[in-house]
């Protein structure tokens, strides 16, 4: 197992290096922070701009290859991912934002999974009955409606509640109210901030798991081995829960392992709409602010997290499917 991990790890490190390098070249040749500087008022001279850029390690006069070598050198020797045009250090910014993203998504991912898989099983057992039709229609709706619109709708709902009650119960944006005393009040404040984004992301998210779990389970409900189990003397429901469910969970487990990292890395709609400055919104900002190093760093983070997802998916499959051998 350890050898397998090491082997996969080396492969992925190599792949991450390739994608990140390619990303850096793309960013360095298309993003020009110096141009943005020139729009400042009073307008600085080109020399001033070049000087300030050079100080931050973003010398626009160097060739992409020279900058790449410098950048890579910084990472390898000092673990320094460079600076933004505004002078901020990528390393410092990054840690904060990863933590914010994680806090935003952790609860809703767990809820999404549990609710999605449970509803999938529930609706598969009642295929074409009323409950199944309602649940599955909802899931398809959640699939179709663009996530930002759904998030806005939830925000509107929360605002409505606030207005109806006549008191602010939910915060629809932001992470916390500054200057709260630690203790009960701070906890209530945190819940009030968490509730809306968590509910919104969960409501939109579970649909895909519900559809997948329902579909895979239905594929197996009439499988030959379920018939064998029934022929042994199990009732239909026993045969489904003991035999079909575990088999149908194999592909779901795999997809779960792959989607979790994707959410951490790319939930920029939610981060933007709920004004949680996480990794996702940072990556969008980096591009609009012509920030080469931040854009490359978010790309690298995305690659790492996908590699983790792939390894996680392998583990998940090995865990639920005895036919898979790790070598």
């Amino acid at each position, binding site marked *: 197992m350890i050898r397998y991990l090491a*082997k996969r790890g080396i*492969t992925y490190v190599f792949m991450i290096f390739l994608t990140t390098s390619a990303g850096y070249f793309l960013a360095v040749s298309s993003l020009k922070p110096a141009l943005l500087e020139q729009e400042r008022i009073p307008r600085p001279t080109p020399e001033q701009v070049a000087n300030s850029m050079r100080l931050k390690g973003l010398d626009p006069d160097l060739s992409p290859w020279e900058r790449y070598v410098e950048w890579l050198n910084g990472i390898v020797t000092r673990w320094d991912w460079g600076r933004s045009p505004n002078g901020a250090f990528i390393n410092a910014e990054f840690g904060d934002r990863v933590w914010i993203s994680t806090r935003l998504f952790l609860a809703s991912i767990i809820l999404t999974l549990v609710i999605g898989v449970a509803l999938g099983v529930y609706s598969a057992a009642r295929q074409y009955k009323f409950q199944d039709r309602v649940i599955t229609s909802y899931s398809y709706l959640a699939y179709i409606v663009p996530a930002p619109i759904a998030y806005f709708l939830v925000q509107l709902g929360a605002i409505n509640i606030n207005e109806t009650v006549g008191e602010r119960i939910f915060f629809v944006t932001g992470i916390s109210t500054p200057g709260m005393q630690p203790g009960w009040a701070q906890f209530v404040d945190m819940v009030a901030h968490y509730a809306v984004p968590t509910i919104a992301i969960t409501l939109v998210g579970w649909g895909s798991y519900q559809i997948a779990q329902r579909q895979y389970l239905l594929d197996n409900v009439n*499988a*030959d*081995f379920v*018939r*064998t*189990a*029934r*022929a*042994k*003397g*199990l*009732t*239909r429901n026993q045969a489904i829960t*003991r*035999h079909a469910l*575990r*088999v149908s969970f*194999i592909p779901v487990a795999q997809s779960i392992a792959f989607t979790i990292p994707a959410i951490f890395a790319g939930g920029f709609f939610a981060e933007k709409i709920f004004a949680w400055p996480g990794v996702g919104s940072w990556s969008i900002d980096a591009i609009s602010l012509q920030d080469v190093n931040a854009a490359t760093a978010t790309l690298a983070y995305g690659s790492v997290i996908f590699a983790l997802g792939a390894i996680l998916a392998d583990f998940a499959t090995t865990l*639920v*499917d*005895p*036919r898979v051998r790790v*070598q």
Partner: protein
Amino acid sequence: MSTFLEPADPAPTAAERLHIAGLHSPSDAVLSVRDLNVSFNSENGAVHAVRGVNFDLMPGKTLGIVGESGSGKSVTSLAIMGLLPATAEISGSVRLKGKELLGLSDKAMCAYRGNDIAMVFQDPLSSLTPVYTVGTQITEALTIHNPGMSKAAKETRAVELLAMVGIPSPRNRLRAFPHEFSGGMRQRVMIAIAIANNPRVLIADEPTTALDVTIQAQVLEVLHTAQEETGAAVVMITHDLGVVAGIADDIMVMYAGKPVETGSVDDIYYDPRMPYTMGLLGAVPRVDVAEKSSLVPIDGIPPNLLHTPTGCSFAPRCPLVTDACLDGEPALSPVPGTGYHQAACIKSGSLGGDVDVHEIFSAPPVPVSRFDLIPRGDRSTVLELKDVRKHFPLTKGALLKRRIGTVKAVDGLSFDIREGECFSIVGESGSGKTTTLLEIMEFHKDQDGEVIIGGISNKQAADAKTKSAMRREMQMVFQDPTGALDPRFTVYEVLAEPLQNAGLSKRAIKKRIMELMNLVGLQPDHVNRFPNQFSGGQRQRVGIARALAVNPKLVVLDEPVSALDVSVQAGVINLLDKLRAELGLSYLMVAHDLSVVRHISNRVAVMYLGKIVEIGEVDRVFDNPRHPYTRALLSAIPVPDPQFERTRERIILQGDLPSPLDAPKGCNFATRCPVFAALPAAKQEHCLTLEPPLEAVQPSAAVEILEAGPAPTPDQRFACFFPDGELDEHMLVVHETAEPHAP
């Protein structure tokens, strides 16, 4: 105890005769079915899948239910087990030891399922849950019906069951997962699960259809043992008349959801009274008969079960149909002058004795090719293989692949096919038959070995022109006619494609297509139809027409009839026979059904693990097999002849085809060889270290089947050092002797 052991009783008592089909009180029957009807609601209306099935099953007896796909035999078994979907409408009565089963809730039915009545399903690969060990799945069956049983007792019983069905080192295998077993082994596990609680009734639904013949013989042996051990009555459902001939006491033939003929096994095989049964028996080629007569084709297709037939359901396909047949569906009624033999035909009285089925169904005369008169040596060679090899490297590792072994899929194959002859390759799955075909079809100049097609060698096939000249010489017909035809092409487009490639004018293409349609027996005005508007047999005819479009010399047939029902299969085989004779074609055929091979081929090669172990003229090889593997293969084929089956001596090979990785240095077959097992150690050493060459049979050894005149070396070669060695008696099985034996 077992019905297998009884010799054919010339005069059974009246009470015994009455025990089928509800003619006597069902009190002593373990399972009695009365007027069972099943219908499903479909978008087009109710499908009447089963209509009025009646039978009584006596303890320890075996009932064979025979029919083609769609005849309602599997639905009958599932209805008895209560395993049909809730949407199925079931009426009638199913009594197990006098207790009514129909109408019981799923939960109430669970007390019987797996306990008093158990079932073995068709496809062993998908019938076991992949994520649980075999042991878990067997003990589950025990736990359900014996909640008080201790864990140790259950494990002991599971080991006992696995040993009973012939799984080596059963205690260790308990912890194995289904994917670690071969198909035959998984079917043994299924049987172990079914007999775990000593059922009174065991239903086996096509238990061997998915398996190789040698494995089929093993599994049938296991079922036989299981029945002996448990004393269960068995319902054996099959489409293969050979499989039930040796083991059934009674037979029920089903057609269009209805039993159309019932009786003792001898009644049905030797004195069939329903034209459908007669046709079915005439449609199956026999592996043990050399004399060639055309097969009986049953025209048409089974009726649509959406409509309740107004007359006899077989009338549209019956050659003896009269107006009276269309007036109401005939009921199953006793055949005059017999005991409990019943047939649903108004003419059953007049069909007895010496009515020739070939005449009734107007089977075509045996076609004679113009090449048949020319000695083989004087005919030109259409295909020749010289020492063709295909080795696949077996590698390990994802990034850096290391070679850990070689799979010798085809290992030094040489044979030739002359004009106008049919050459077949037979062997178990994994023996390299398909790889051989692929090597021939994908000829290229870097191949290991030489493939000579129409006089041009693959070594010369460098330019596209030579290649396409070689391609035109041979065409292929595939196993699955549905998969081989593009569903969005009309038949016209399917047939026009090769002709356009050959550069024919539009006019010439049209003319050729009409010719082809006539040639393969399709209506020319059906050319604008899509493949899904044809039946399976017709689709295979389209596939044959496509292969013949460019006038090839050689047609490569990959299992051409294995996907077809018996009655349809006969028509296609007759067509292939006729085309060979009329067009002077040569065939290279791969088939697992040795009866079909014997019927249609002139020469045959038996392959084992990539090598030819025996090759020669088909009648010589089949009547006087020299290689122990050929002997085993032939003895494993069930013959639709109950008397013969009961007295026949079988060689049951042990185990499965070994992995090519473990192939011994000497003779490949030594690990399973019945002769090898009985040899003294010194001679065994000979087999294990030296590879037997393919050598001709000495004329003296085959003197009994030589015709008049000076004897040239007979056309039969085999690769074995000790063809006349004694067979290991543990691998021989004869049911007639009634001696207990090790399977």
